[in-house]
C-alpha cells in the first residue's frame, strides 16, 4: 500500500474548556477529494490550522508523505507542499490581482527574492497571469483587489494557494460567498486547475450539493470528534450525521 499523502494519528487540541480536536485519525491517499463537514465550531478549521502548522496540536502526529510535520511553522509547511485557502479571503488588499498572484508565484520559487530584478521578471508575472487565466480572472489583472466582489476574491485566494503546485490543497469553504449559479463552475475550475484534476484536495464545505458532487469521501466532525468517515452517499445518510450536521435535509 502506498504511503498516504496525509496521515493524521491521535490528534488532540483544546482551547480552554473547548475541545476542538479529540483523537482524530485520518489517512488520505494521493488524488482523493475529501470533504470535511460539520457545524460551526465542530473543529474543521482547527484541523486545517493544525495541518498547516498554524496551531500546534496538544497531542498526536501529522505526517506528510510519511514524514512527521513536527513543530513546523506555516511557512515551512507550505514549502513542504501543503497549501491552503481561507474562509475569509486573505489577500493583499491594496495590490492588484496580478500583483497578488505575482507575490504568490515569486514565493513559490526556490530562488531567493531579488532586491534589484523587477517584480515581473523571471516569468513571475507571466505565471501569475496564467494562473489568473485558469480561473477566468484575466480581466481583473490590474484592478486592485479591494474593488473585487466577494466571490471573485475567493477565487483569487484559491489561485494564490495553487502557485506552489501543492501536493495537498486545503480549501476552507471554497464556495461560500459565491453566488448559487457560480458555485459549480467555481468548484469545476478549482478541481481542474490543480494537476488536471489529479491533486489531493481537502475542502471544508457547508453546501451538501457541492459535497455530493465533488467529494470522493466525506468526513463529518462534531465537537472535535469524527462522527462518520466514508463515501458521500453513506455519510450523508448516516443518522447521527443527519442529527448533528446536515439536519436531515437529504
Amino acid at each position, binding site marked *: 500500500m502506498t504511503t498516504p499523502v496525509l496521515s493524521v494519528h491521535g490528534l488532540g487540541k483544546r482551547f480552554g474548556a473547548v475541545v476542538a480536536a479529540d483523537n482524530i485519525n485520518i489517512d488520505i491517499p494521493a488524488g482523493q477529494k475529501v470533504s470535511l463537514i460539520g457545524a460551526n465550531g465542530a473543529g474543521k478549521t482547527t484541523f486545517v490550522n493544525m495541518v498547516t502548522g498554524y496551531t500546534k496540536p496538544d497531542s498526536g502526529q501529522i505526517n506528510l508523505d510519511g514524514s512527521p510535520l513536527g513543530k513546523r511553522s506555516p*511557512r515551512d509547511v507550505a514549502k513542504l507542499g501543503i497549501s491552503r485557502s481561507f474562509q475569509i479571503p*486573505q489577500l493583499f488588499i491594496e*495590490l492588484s490581482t*496580478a500583483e497578488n498572484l505575482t*507575490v*504568490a508565484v515569486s*514565493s513559490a520559487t526556490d530562488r531567493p527574492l531579488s532586491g534589484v530584478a523587477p517584480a515581473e521578471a523571471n516569468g513571475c508575472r507571466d505565471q501569475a497571469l496564467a494562473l489568473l487565466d485558469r480561473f477566468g480572472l484575466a480581466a481583473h489583472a490590474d484592478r486592485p483587489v479591494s474593488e473585487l466582489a466577494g466571490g471573485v476574491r475567493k477565487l483569487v485566494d484559491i489561485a494564490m494557494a495553487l502557485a506552489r503546485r501543492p501536493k495537498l490543497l486545503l480549501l476552507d469553504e471554497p464556495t461560500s460567498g459565491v453566488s448559487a449559479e457560480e458555485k459549480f463552475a467555481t468548484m469545476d475550475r478549482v478541481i481542474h486547475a490543480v494537476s488536471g484534476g489529479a491533486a489531493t484536495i481537502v475542502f471544508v464545505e457547508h453546501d451538501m450539493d457541492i459535497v455530493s458532487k465533488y467529494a470522493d469521501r466525506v468526513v463529518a466532525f462534531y465537537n472535535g470528534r469524527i462522527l462518520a468517515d466514508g463515501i458521500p452517499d453513506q455519510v450523508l445518510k448516516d443518522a447521527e450525521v443527519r442529527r448533528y450536521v446536515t439536519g436531515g435535509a437529504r
Partner: protein
Amino acid sequence: MTRSTYLFSLVCLIIAAVLFGRVIPAWTLSLATVAASNALIALGIVVLSRTGNVSFGQGLFFAAGGYGVALLAHSWGITDAVLQVVIGAVCGGVLGLIIGPLIARYTGIFFGMLTLALSMVLYGALVKTTVLGGSDGFNVGRPTLFGTAFTDPRDADFMLYAVSVVATGLAGIAATVFFRSQLGLMSLAVRENNLRVEYLGTSANRIVTINFVIAAIFAGASGALSLMAQRHIDPQFAYWTTSGEFVFIAILAGSQSVAAVFVASLALELVRSFSNLYLPNTWQLVLGLFLLAVILFLPRGIGSLWTSAKRKPNEPPPSPVIVEKGSAT
C-alpha cells in the same frame, strides 16, 4: 523609456543638482545640504514603512553612524568625506543587522515604541558617557575629499553639498529600483497581510529585517553627513525629537515617490530657516500647523500632488504612510 535609460536620466539629474550648487547663494547651499542629509534618513523610514512598520527611533542609527565616524576620525585620522559616509552607513547597517531580527516580529504601535525605546537607551547611555563628552559631545575637524583639504569655506561647503547630494541621490536611485523589485513587492505584501505571506512560504520577519537594515544604513550615512556639516556630535542625535523630525518628513512626503522625500525635506528646511529669520521661536508652531494641514488635506503626503490615482500596470499602487483604518479586511 527603458529601465536603463530611466536610471541614466536619474544619474544625470544628480549631476545637474551638484553643478547647480555652484550657482546658488551660500545660505541656500547649506540649507540644501541639510535637506539632502535629512532626506536620506527619511527615505529609509519610507522604505521601512512599506512593510507597515514606522520606526520612531532612527536616531539610534543616526547617532551610531555619527559617533562611529567621529571616533574613527579622532583615532585613525580618517577625514575623507566619502569614506566617512561609507563608515557611517556600515555602522548603521551592522547595528541594524543585530537589532533587526530581534524586533522584526513586532508590528504596528509596538514596533514603533520599541524602536523609540532603543534609541532612548542609546541616548541615555551617551549622555552619561564622559569619555565621549557626555551631553556636550565633542567636535571633529573638517572633512577632506580624495586627499584634498578645503581651506576656503565656500569650497568646503560645496564639497559637502556635493557629497550629500550624491549620497542621497544614489540612495534614492537604489530605493526606486528596490521598490519595483521582487523584494519591494513582497514588502508591500507584508504590510497588507503578513499572515498570508507566511502561508505562501516567505518569512515576513526576514522581509522586515531587510527593509530595516536598509533604513539603518541610510540613517547611519545621514549621521555621517550631519557630523560633517556640524563638525560636532552629541547625544541629541539619538533623542526622540530628532527621530520625530525625520518621521515628520517621511509622513509629509508620503510613500508614493522618492522625489517627494526630497521636496518634503527641502520644505522643512525652508520653513525652519524663514521662521528663524523673521519670527524667532515659531518654526515649531509653523511646522505643527503645516503637519495638521498635510494630515487634513494630503493624507497621502506631498507625493500625491503629482502622482495620479491611475497607476501604470506594473507599478506598485500608491501606498499612504498613513493607512486608512478598515481598508484591509
